[in-house]
């Protein structure tokens, strides 16, 4: 029985300009720098002052959400609306300053996968490193390595450093690794993409069985088609608030209405 529950969740980011992060400015309180700090603006979250007097961006505020087995939630909203923040909060990375988050089930998060890849490591080392860091046993890792090798069709290249890979081959590897383990709760920032035409169909099939196997899936996206294809409910985020919540088509319509209203 898997579950994600958010109750009145509020998440604030402290704003540190370059000066604000240094001890010098903390001690000298340079007024010019303070002024510059106060002009920082991010798209999205409201900029306020918290109880200790620090400037903060309020990335999420009063977010209530309850997800159970079988839920396929799509998150949409403008840049900075809080999509990535809510995913990271669900993953337990950001602990809320107010409210509560309860999750049951092992969380697989598929964001930032490629950022930490080492281009000098071989494909096999990468598979192994990923697997072990996710807490798998060396035996499990070896079993998956075989399966990933078959799926990616990289063959001998798995013994070569990633710097010798083409962009498409890297995508194959990243995709293969990402989808090699059956998730309980799956969190994604955009649907992971997939290589050339011949690979595309197999990738789609694998992605489908991967997502179908998940107890709960949450995906943040800018594409209505992805919502229609993979999700059974959706949330529209706006400035850190839930602006609309419900069936996929209704939420997409609401977003369209807002975009059109903004144009006028």
């Amino acid at each position: 029985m898997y579950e994600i529950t958010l109750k009145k969740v509020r998440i604030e980011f402290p704003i540190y300009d370059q000066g604000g992060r240094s001890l010098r400015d903390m001690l000298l309180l340079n007024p010019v720098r303070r002024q510059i700090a106060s002009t920082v603006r991010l798209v999205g979250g409201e900029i306020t002052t918290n109880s200790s007097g620090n400037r903060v961006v309020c990335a999420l505020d009063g977010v209530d959400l309850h997800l159970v087995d079988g839920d396929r939630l799509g998150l949409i909203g403008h840049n900075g609306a809080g999509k990535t923040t809510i995913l990271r909060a669900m993953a337990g990375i950001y602990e809320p300053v107010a409210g509560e988050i309860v999750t049951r089930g092992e969380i697989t998060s598929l964001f930032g996968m490629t950022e930490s890849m080492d281009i000098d490591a071989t494909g096999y080392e990468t598979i192994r490193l990923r697997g072990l860091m996710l807490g798998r046993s060396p035996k499990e890792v070896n079993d998956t390595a075989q399966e990933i090798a078959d799926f990616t069709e990289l063959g001998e290249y798995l013994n070569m450093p990633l710097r010798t890979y083409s962009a498409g081959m890297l995508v194959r590897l990243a995709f293969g690794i990402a989808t090699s383990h059956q998730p309980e709760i799956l969190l994604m920032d955009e649907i992971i993409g997939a290589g050339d035409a011949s690979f595309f169909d197999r990738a789609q099939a694998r992605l489908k069985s991967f997502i179908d196997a998940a107890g709960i899936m949450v995906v943040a996206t800018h594409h209505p088609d992805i919502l229609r294809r993979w999700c059974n409910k959706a949330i529209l985020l706006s400035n850190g608030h839930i602006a609309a919540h419900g069936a996929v088509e209704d939420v997409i319509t609401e977003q369209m209405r807002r975009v059109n209203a903004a144009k006028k």
Partner: protein
Amino acid sequence: MLSTTQRDRRLAWIDLRRGVEAWNIWHILAMQELRQRYRRSVLGPLWISVSLAVQVAVMGFLVGVLFKQEHTKYLPYATLGIILWNFISTSLMEGANCFVGASTYLLQCKRPLFAFVIHVLWRNLVYLAHTAVIFVIVALIFTVPLAPATLLVLPGLVLLIVNMAWMLLFIGVIAARFRDVHMMLSSSMTVLFWVTPIVFYPEMLGQFRWITDFNPLAHLLEIVRAPLLGQVPAAEPWLFTIGMAVIGWIATFQLFSRFRARIPYWL
């Protein structure tokens, strides 16, 4: 500002425990980095030993001549000093980067923060093992005696590691928030090198001996170095380092309980 609730302390404790257990993070990452750094080099990790050997040969010899020391006794002493100092200073400086450098991992999924402190410590211990070889060679050349006292190196090392762990965690938390800490540490290392008895004996300071008596790093050095030279360290460095471990961990635990949840926001 440092008020913590019971929940904060409980979660901090869980993080520390899971961090220690997460060998799959700290060990794997450290080994991967070691492989990565020496990939495509002929000597590989042997470079760690070679560069230290050069440092010891030049520095140990020259300073020995300057201080008019007898090489048989002085070189093993200075070699250990330099080896241990390299371990301590590099760990402290890299400790400032333990969370910041791991931000891609920490923002990807929930992982125990303390694992990334151990990661830095463990990597430097592996380096220490490579440099310790140089001492073994020096000890064989100058026939440093193996005595029952040599065994005291084990508790000495444990105390050193326990102390380093809290210092690295402390520095890591502060440095995640204030990015100057790394620079501050790098520039203090030269000063610390000269106020710590690494290439000189505390007695040489004469009336200024108190400089080393109040230097925590001097005591940490002593409890590992003295046994390896076949001497029993006095009671003072033991008490000093044990007290330091207790007080240091209490203070660091308080700091960590208070700010643990904030660290991902600072990255």
